[in-house]
C-alpha cells in the first residue's frame, strides 16, 4: 500500500515538468525577440525553475515519507 501511495505522490512531478517547460519556452521566446536581454532573462529563468522545482520536491519528499515512515 505504501508503494502505491508513493507512486501517486510522485505524479505531482508531472505538473512541475509542465510548468518548467512553460517557463523555459517563454524565456526562450523573450530571448529570441530581444537578444540584449539574454543574460537577465537567463538568470530569472533559472530562479523561476528553482522555485517551480519546489513543487516536485515536495512530491518527492512525501513519496519518501510514504516509503520509509508511513
Amino acid at each position, binding site marked *: 500500500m505504501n508503494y502505491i501511495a508513493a507512486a501517486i505522490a510522485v505524479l505531482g512531478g508531472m505538473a512541475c515538468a509542465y510548468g518548467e517547460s512553460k517557463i523555459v519556452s517563454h524565456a526562450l521566446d523573450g530571448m529570441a525577440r530581444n537578444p540584449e536581454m539574454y543574460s537577465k532573462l537567463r538568470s530569472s529563468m*533559472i*530562479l523561476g525553475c*528553482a*522555485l517551480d*522545482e*519546489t513543487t516536485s*520536491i*515536495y512530491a*518527492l*519528499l512525501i513519496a519518501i515519507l510514504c516509503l520509509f515512515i508511513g
Partner: protein
Amino acid sequence: MNNINFYSSFSDALSHMFDFDIPGEIYSSLIVMLLICLLSFVIYFKFKHADPLEERPHGFVLILSSAVSYVRNFTIELMGKKWEGFAGYVLALFLYVFLAFTFSLTGLPSPATYLAVPLSLGLCTFVLIHVTAMKANKWKYFNRFFDPFPPYIPFFFPINLLSMWSPLLSLSLRLFGNALSGYVLMTIIYAFFGQISSTIFAFIQSGVNQVFLAPFVTPFLHLYFDLFSGGIQTLVFVMLTMIFVSQEDPDTSEEEMLILKKPEPEGN
C-alpha cells in the same frame, strides 16, 4: 525509548557522560560554523593589515571586498536603501547555507539533510518577518489575522492563522527537500555503479571490487546535485528571506518615492 538511566556510582555516570544521541549532521553543522568563524577572523586580520594607500588591492582582499560590495548592492537593490544594515545577515546566510549544502562533497553528512537545520534557518526568517511587521505596524500588526475584514469580524481568522506558517514551511522544506533528494539520488547511483562494478571485476576480492566505476561517473552528478543545486537554492533562500522581510515594511524606498512624486501630465 527509555532514555532515563540511574547510574550506580559517580564514575559510572562519568563514563556515560558522552552517550548523547546526537546525529552526525549536527557535528557537520558545528564544523561549518567553525569554518565560518575562522574565515571571519582571517578576514578581520587581513583587512586590518591591508594597506589602504595601496593602489590596487589584490588576491584575498580583492575577492572579499568585491564580494562584500556585491552583497551590499544586492541588498539595496532588492530591499531599498533603508535596509543597508541587513547586508551582514545576508552575507552570513549566504555563507552558511552554501557551505552546509556543499558539505556533502567532503564525504561527511550534509547538515541540510537533517530537518532541524533548515527548520531553524526558516525559523530565523519567520521571527524576522514578524518582528519587522510589529515594528512597522505597531498595534495594527494584529489586523493581519482578520485581514480582508475589520477585526470585529473574525471570519478569516482560522485561515490567516494557518497561512501565517506557510513561509516557514515552504522555506525550510524547500532547502531540506533539495538536499535530501540530491542525497538519496546520489546514494542510489553509488549503489548501482557499485553493483555493476562488482559484477564486471568479479575476479578481484569482493568488497574491494565495487569502487572502480563510480568515480568516473559521479563527479558530474556531484557538480549538479551539490554545487549547482546548492548555489541556486542558496540564492532562492536568501532572496525569499529578503523579499519576505522587506515587504512587511510598507514605507516606500527613495527610488520609489521619486517615481511616485513625478509631476502629473498637464492638460485637462
